[in-house]
């Protein structure tokens, strides 16, 4: 094999006149592709409390609980109590979540969805517990 010392130098010299490949991330916005999985959001209206998401969550980061304020039981026109949809809240532990979005996939009512909000670092761990109402 022919040996060529300093083989990389022409490319290095070219780079002297090029812009750096580095992305100045915190100062510049990072570009994300559509479909990047980040923070999971929750829609109270749609949740029926089947807790499938809790069952599949690998990190046990999601918890579906009964909301504190439930709607008053109503009576129908015939005087009998009408069935009322219970309201469920979702507690997301972002410090445990691994952003696999398996919960989004399994949700039968599409109450969960992923966003592209990925800048979630916090100094206080308590702030990483999100209570979706």
């Amino acid at each position, binding site marked *: 094999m022919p040996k060529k010392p*300093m083989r*990389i*130098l022409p490319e*290095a010299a070219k780079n*002297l006149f090029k812009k*750096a490949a580095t992305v*100045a991330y915190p100062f510049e916005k990072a570009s994300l592709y559509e479909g990047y999985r980040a923070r999971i959001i929750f829609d109270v209206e749609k949740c029926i409390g089947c807790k499938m998401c809790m069952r599949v969550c690998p990190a046990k980061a999601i918890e579906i609980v009964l909301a504190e304020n439930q709607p008053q039981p109503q009576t129908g026109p015939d005087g009998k109590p009408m069935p009322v949809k219970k309201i469920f809240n979702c507690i997301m532990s972002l410090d445990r979540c691994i952003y696999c979005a398996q919960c989004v996939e399994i949700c039968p009512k599409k109450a969960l969805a992923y966003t592209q909000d990925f800048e979630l670092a916090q100094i206080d761990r308590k702030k990483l517990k999100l209570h979706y109402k």
Partner: protein
Amino acid sequence: MEILAALIYITVFPGFLFLASYGTALQWADRKIAAVMQNRVGPPWYQTLADFIKLASKEIVIPDGADVALFKALPYVAVASVSTAVLFIPVFGMPVYSFQGDLVAVIYLLTIPTATFFLAGWSSTSPYASIGSIRVMTQLFGYEVPLLLALVGPAILAGSWSIQEISAFFVSNPKLILFQIIGFVVAVLALQGKLERVPFDTPHAKNEIVGGQFTEYSGMLLALFNLSIDMEMVVGAALINAVFLGGTWNYFSFAAFAVFMVKTFAIVFLLTAIRAAMARVRIDQMVSFCWKYLAPMAMLQIVIDLYIKYSLK
């Protein structure tokens, strides 16, 4: 009065203060140019200064079993010997001191830091540092002879052992600089070894022996060692400039200073390009490269110089 003047020369200009500031600036330039060559951003201009201040403010940890006095004194010896060496090299026109044989004196003064690196590793009593210091010594035997031989060539041609006279000779015979190219290449490569930079940075190759001879050093002492290497880079570049490229080119005061800055910067740029373009070689490969290629090349340069000298007569 003379002693006072000498002290000022050593501590302020062109000694310690000038060398330290120019050395850190060159270190930044070296890091920045290497970074740009690698297509990344590189450190901001104050990075080297910040590194120094940060290190200086850190605690000094001295390992058990180390000779405390020696351990603490070594960095100062390294800095002092480099600061002294620059007095014989033209920076602002004429060098501060000049005598027949100062070329040899400078080479010896520049060997003292290497000796302190060896002692630093050896007195640290840690396996990584011991291996590092053995490598420092082995490497010294590799590059020192080619460097000396390369510097002998111009000295023979000029018929003088004084750095000032050698550069003056080249200023009056500028065409002869072209014939020094082999010696120049040898000297630059040997200087790379002296400064322990890639491809010859085996003494403190971090992937192999962590910090090498400086493994146990911390705080101000480590900062001073780093500074001494930066200063050595300036002095080494200035020495090559004076011996091979005609020094400050007969100019005096600020014009001479500008020439000095431009030329040393160009030599450091070369050193950076070498650093960026190569992988680190093993210590045995380094020594065999120096003896198999560099030393014969330097000898060839001496032969060429002898031929030129006698054909000129």
